[in-house]
């Protein structure tokens, strides 16, 4: 079948994409065959076990719990030594031979019930001996069969997920988990249906059901080989060497992997509590079945029918609900559904009458099985996604096999203890036994529920553990390495040597007074001059004779006494009086340098009305250089009457930065004056666009509120400036709070605009992609206001430039962080999808035709 057609068919059951189709189909078939086998084996196992005394029941589980460590160790050795394909094939062959052996044992036992063992004429003494052995020790064989069945299901399911991990990366596996679970459920239904039909119709005795299974497992071997053949083919194309390096999964390594990881410890505890509760519910169920069914055939039929119904309900539940619960409510609530439901059902056992006991047992055991087959299975696999690949194999083997079986053993011990405690015969009625056990069940269900929260709390932390920064924000790098204002002042000082020595020394004086200059900078500026360096600098900047007018003055400027003298001069009343009278004349000078020097000096003068008037005029000077120095003066004096003049300079790209700096120096009191500008139709767009940066530099709560309110007006021409400003406030002002109810609608609006960039009229693909990236950047910038900033930035960086695996983690992290509606629209934009698929998903999310 062509890949495209296969993909279309599989798409109805799960999110399958192109190259995954063949391997996904083979794995689904494998899971189908494994669970079909298991659900044929299971009624046989349960029937034989229930047929034994209740006191024997726990020993099957105990045997598994005690011997599972040995099985894990042997399995680990095989897993390490054999190629994965050979290992899985060999395992399945082992289980096939086991089935044939147990069929022989049960067949011999059943025939022994109505025939006398004799040595026939051919002298087959072995068969006679075997018959005697089986007859005398049948319960031991039943327990051995239960142990074998437990090993079969635990190992085959774990091996199946190992194959999934081999074939797909975590994000692919997450998408395909629903398809695999569907395959498993239908396999279960088919197996249980076959068992029920054959036993109800009395076509074959129960033990002969086991003869069906080897055929299914032979097909499973074919499926395994198909998976790995397909994987080899796709890896050869992609140059992927993952299969060549299998992880070591020894029992000790597995234990250490879980012990050393807090998340895995909690996960193991959660799984253990769930298994203990589920096993005790199973014992309650068995007790009820034992009390009501006495014939072995009837029991087998009932149990097969029970599993058939539960699997059918599970399949319906899975197809209708699992995906939706996970998608809509996330892993957090999906984890809690099963323990919450079982807690409610288990609590009702204390109020139901005896007549409803079978129905109750159906609901309790059925509920446990249904959730285990559907949501539980999916959630368990998803919880392993954040675990690194090397640890995952070890942890999975340890938790899914060892912890699972030890928990089953613990439940068995609890059942034995409860049995031993039942000393009075009247307490052996079904209701009493089920209720007494129910108390313990409730305790473990409550523990399970608590642990789901605990695991979920760790889950995002584990996801983001490997999501470090790919690149540092430009502003962060600059702030870490240099003082941008100082650099600009140094460049201005150097440049001013060309204009006027006086201006140069003025700048030098300002620099020395306000900054702690490094020795290199002092050298550059001629302070503490190293003659060779100074000459080199003079030559470099071509200052000619200008540097020679006041030789050695650079040294003087650094002198504290000299600086004090200058300060005193500025404070002299006579100086102020003279300057008040003279400034008007100086600023009318045709010499640009004189006006610059005046603007520079005003920074240090007292703010008398004539001085401030002169500053106002200098702020309106025709020379950009004069304005630049005047803006610096305005930022020192911060006079309200200068604000309208400064605002005009926001429209000029040559003065915008200094004008913004000057306005920001006014501080929070200017915020009220800036707010109306943002929405004033009279102001040029350049001015309005420059205002958000000023508000961001002020960084008060009121400034942030104004920016958010302005964003809500949804003016396209202001959007980038407003988001940049809000992003800056979030980065630099931890105390500023953003209200979700104000930002959420704007976030959704931005996401929808990003969707429009994809759904809009088709243009050149490069331009469409560029537009989408710019839109997404705005979305993520806004997300930093609602969610932890560092996490959002990391997720964004990995989605943009991460490895396939880190992209998966980032997506998974966002999946657990973001609001459901936001995710519905955002994920089709950020996931790696073919263009057609992306458009289709967006249209679906936007409910477009």
């Amino acid at each position: 079948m062509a890949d495209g057609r296969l993909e279309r068919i599989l798409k109805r059951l799960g999110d399958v994409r192109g190259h995954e189709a063949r391997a996904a189909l083979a794995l689904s078939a494998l899971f189908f065959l494994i669970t079909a086998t298991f659900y044929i084996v299971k009624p046989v196992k349960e029937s034989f076990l229930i047929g034994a005394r209740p006191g024997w029941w726990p020993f099957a589980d105990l045997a598994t719990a005690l011997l599972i460590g040995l099985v894990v160790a042997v399995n680990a050795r095989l897993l390490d030594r054999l190629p994965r394909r050979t290992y899985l094939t060999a395992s399945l062959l082992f289980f096939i031979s086991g089935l044939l052996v147990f069929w022989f044992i049960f067949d011999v036992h059943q025939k022994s019930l109505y025939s006398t063992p004799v040595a026939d004429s051919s002298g087959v003494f072995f068969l006679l001996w075997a018959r005697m052995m089986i007859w005398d020790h049948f319960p031991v064989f039943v327990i051995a069969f239960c142990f074998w069945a437990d090993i079969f299901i635990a190992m085959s399911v774990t091996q199946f997920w190992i194959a999934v991990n081999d074939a797909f990366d975590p994000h692919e596996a997450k998408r395909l988990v629903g398809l695999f679970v569907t395959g498993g459920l239908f396999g279960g239904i088919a197996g249980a249906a076959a068992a029920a039909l054959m036993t109800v119709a009395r076509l074959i005795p129960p033990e002969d059901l086991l003869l069906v299974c080897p055929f299914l497992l032979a097909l499973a071997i074919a499926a395994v080989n198909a998976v790995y053949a397909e994987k080899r083919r796709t890896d050869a194309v992609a140059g992927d060497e993952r299969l060549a390096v299998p992880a070591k999964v020894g029992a000790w390594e597995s234990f250490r992997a879980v012990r050393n990881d807090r998340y895995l410890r909690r996960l193991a505890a959660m799984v253990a509590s769930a298994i203990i509760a589920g096993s005790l519910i199973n014992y309650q169920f068995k007790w009820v079945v034992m009390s009501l069914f006495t014939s072995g055939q009837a029991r087998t039929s009932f149990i097969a029918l029970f599993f058939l119904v539960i699997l059918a309900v599970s399949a319906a539940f899975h197809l209708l609900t699992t995906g939706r619960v996970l998608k809509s409510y996330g892993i957090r609530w999906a984890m809690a559904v099963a323990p919450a439901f079982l807690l409610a059902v288990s609590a009702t056992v204390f109020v139901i009458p005896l007549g409803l006991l079978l129905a109750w047992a159906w609901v309790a055991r059925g509920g446990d099985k249904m959730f285990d087959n559907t949501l539980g299975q999916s959630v368990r696999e998803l919880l392993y996604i954040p675990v690194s690949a090397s640890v995952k194999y070890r942890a999975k083997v340890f938790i899914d096999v060892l912890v699972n079986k030890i928990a089953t053993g613990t439940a068995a011990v609890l059942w034995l203890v409860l049995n031993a405690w039942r000393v009075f015969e009247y307490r052996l009625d079904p209701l009493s036994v089920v209720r007494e056990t129910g108390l313990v069940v409730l305790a473990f269900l409550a523990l399970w529920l608590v642990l789901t929260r605990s695991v979920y709390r760790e889950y995002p932390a584990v996801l983001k553990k490997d999501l470090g920064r790919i690149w540092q924000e430009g502003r962060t790098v600059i702030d870490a390495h240099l003082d941008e204002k100082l650099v600009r002042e140094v460049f201005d000082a150097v440049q001013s040597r060309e204009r006027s020595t006086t201006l140069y020394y003025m700048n030098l004086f300002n620099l020395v007074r306000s900054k702690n200059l490094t020795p290199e900078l002092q050298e550059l500026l001629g302070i503490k001059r190293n003659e060779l360096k100074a000459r080199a600098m003079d030559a470099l900047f071509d200052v000619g004779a200008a540097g020679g007018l006041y030789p050695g003055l650079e040294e003087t400027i650094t002198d504290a006494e000299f600086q004090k003298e200058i300060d005193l001069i500025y404070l002299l009343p006579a100086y102020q009086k003279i300057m008040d009278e003279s400034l008007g004349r100086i600023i009318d000078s045709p010499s640009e340098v004189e006006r610059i020097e005046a603007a520079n000096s005003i920074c240090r003068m007292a703010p008398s009305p004539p001085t401030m008037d002169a500053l106002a005029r200098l702020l309106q000077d025709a020379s950009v250089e004069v304005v630049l120095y005047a803006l610096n003066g305005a930022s020192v004096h911060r006079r309200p009457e200068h604000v309208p003049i400064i605002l005009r300079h926001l429209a000029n790209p040559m003065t915008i930065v200094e004008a913004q700096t000057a306005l920001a120096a006014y501080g929070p009191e200017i915020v009220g004056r800036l707010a109306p500008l943002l929405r004033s139709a009279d102001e040029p767009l350049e001015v309005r666009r420059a205002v958000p940066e000023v508000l961001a530099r002020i960084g008060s709560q009121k400034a942030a509120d104004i920016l958010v309110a302005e964003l809500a007006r949804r003016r396209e021409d202001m959007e980038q400036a407003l988001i940049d400003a809000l992003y800056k406030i979030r980065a630099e002002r931890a105390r500023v709070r953003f209200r979700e109810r104000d930002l959420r609608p704007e976030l959704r609006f931005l996401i929808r605009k990003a969707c429009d960039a994809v759904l809009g009229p088709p243009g050149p693909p490069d331009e469409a992609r560029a537009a989408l990236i710019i839109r997404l950047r705005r979305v993520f910038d806004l997300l930093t206001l609602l969610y932890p900033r560092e996490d959002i930035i990391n997720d964004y960086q990995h989605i943009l430039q991460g490895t396939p695996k880190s992209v998966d983690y980032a997506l998974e992290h966002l999946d657990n962080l973001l609001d459901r509606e936001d995710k519905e629209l955002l994920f089709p934009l950020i996931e790696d999808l073919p263009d057609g698929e992306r458009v289709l998903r967006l249209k679906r999310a936007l409910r477009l035709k």
Partner: protein
Amino acid sequence: MVIKTRELGNIVIFDIQGEIRRADTIQETLHSLVEAQLDRGRRNLLLDLGGVEFIDSFGVGQILASYISTQHLGGKLKLCRISDKLLLIFKITMLDKVLDIHEDCDRALESFGRA
């Protein structure tokens, strides 16, 4: 200041001539040209300063603003053929710690591929 842009593969090269400094007349700034390339989806930008004689504080601001905008989108901005004079000031003011400066443009172009 005259800025010409050309593309070499996925790299946009800005050939800058003259002085990156404040002018009395409003003109297109380096930062606005860089932003226009970022809006077009270009992420690898190279400033060829071979023809630049001087940079004032405005020019420094333009280069730093271009660097911030490029980094914000996960892009790379590099400088090449910076004059000895400017390189000395860049070093002393530690701008070389922030900006990726290459002696010649071929090496700068190669380094885009390596990163």
